[in-house]
């Protein structure tokens, strides 16, 4: 049971490619690998712990203010993550800037709380949250890998495409400027969804 909770969100129920949630930040922070990785970690922590906390108090939440209670808990965690990044990982926190604050608007978090944490025990909810964050993070890293490599010629800030290849230095190569624009990420996500659906029987719709 627990194993399935962890495995499903990574592939068969991947939040980005199957549920198509959390697209906005997947487009925004994936121009470079480093912010994408920190963002993936931050989201994983927030989804995990918000699901855990909501699951702990799930039987006490008044139904009429359910969404507000969830938002307050998620917002608290997002602010904590932001504050901790500012104190202990200042450089990266500067790069991510507004996107850390925007984790609260990530549909995956509220989605998992509503769909899973409200009806399950804390530990499975924690695993579910972490797994969904991880599934989200995998796609983010994959996107950032392609976008940084072809858009900037670097990976994790390290030059990969030899500088002598560039036409500015007498070579034949140019960075693909389109890759660093959001539409490129959307097209890449589309390609990943297409490939995943073509090769996975369970996902083929009749």
């Amino acid at each position, binding site marked *: 049971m627990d194993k399935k909770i962890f495995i499903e969100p990574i592939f068969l129920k991947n939040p980005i490619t199957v549920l198509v949630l959390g697209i906005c930040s997947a487009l*925004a*922070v994936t*121009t*470079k690998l480093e*912010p994408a990785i920190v963002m993936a970690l931050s989201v994983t922590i927030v989804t995990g712990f918000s699901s855990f906390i909501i699951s702990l108090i799930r039987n*006490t*939440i*008044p*139904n*009429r*203010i359910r969404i*507000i*209670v969830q938002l*307050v*808990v998620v*917002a*608290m965690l997002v*602010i*904590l993550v932001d*504050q*901790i990044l*500012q*104190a*202990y990982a*200042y450089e990266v926190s*500067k*790069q991510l*800037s*507004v996107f850390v604050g925007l984790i609260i608007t990530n549909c995956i978090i509220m989605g998992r709380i509503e769909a899973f944490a409200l009806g399950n025990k804390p530990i499975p909810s924690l695993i579910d949250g972490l797994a969904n964050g991880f599934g989200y993070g995998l796609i983010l890293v994959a996107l950032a890998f392609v*976008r940084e490599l072809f*858009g*900037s010629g670097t990976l994790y800030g390290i030059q990969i495409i030899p500088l002598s290849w560039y036409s500015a230095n007498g070579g034949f190569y140019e960075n693909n*400027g389109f890759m*660093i*624009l959001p539409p490129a990420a959307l097209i890449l996500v589309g390609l990943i969804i297409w490939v995943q659906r073509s090769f996975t029987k369970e996902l083929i719709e009749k």
Partner: protein
Amino acid sequence: MDTNKNLYTIVYSTILVVVVAVVLALASYLLKDRQQRNVAIETKMMILKSVNLAKDASKADDKPTYIEQEYSKYITDSSITEGEKTLPIYICRMENQEKYYIVKLHGAGLWGPIWGYISFKSDLSTIYGAVFAHKGETPGLGAEISTSMFSDQFIDKTIFEGENFVSVSVVKGGAATGNHEVDAISGGTITSKAVEAMLKSCIGDYLNFFKANLNNTPLVPVSDSTIVNPSDSTMLINQIDTTKN
């Protein structure tokens, strides 16, 4: 217990908000010193980088201490009194007695504030170095202003054409030849233009000081505590006791 009663809902939300407020206040209280120190170190590092120092700061074992040491070794905080305004100016004195003047820049980018430091050689026209930062420009696009690839272009550009203040413009393509132009960032036009506007307005504030001292080499000696400019007695460089900062 009936969780749908009004009283329960009100009491529940009150307790929740109080608990969350306490957690956040505590986190803010505990992390504040560290965050403020990060910001202070960041400022000092930017000032050092604007005069091309502290290049290997990231390799230093204890970065904050390294930055503090370098800063107190080279940089003196000063200010200029310009009418009623007091404008900060940082003076850098290198080991070979070369002096550089550093001006703080601040402006509005596309999504939020942008800022930076720019240093001038003692002729107060030739740029010795520049460094830019931003709050929330788009990663990969406008955010590229903070890379050395962009800021290094400013080195050796001049902000005066004869006696006229022309600042440095950000233009599209092939700017390497112009004395007052640098290449903009592809896809980051608005941020690039914001840098241009920021340079114009922030250096503009210092214009009287710059003009009065243009091409005066060597300029005011750093060791003097108060220097009255011969051409304009309202302009003073006040040496501020660095230990207070």
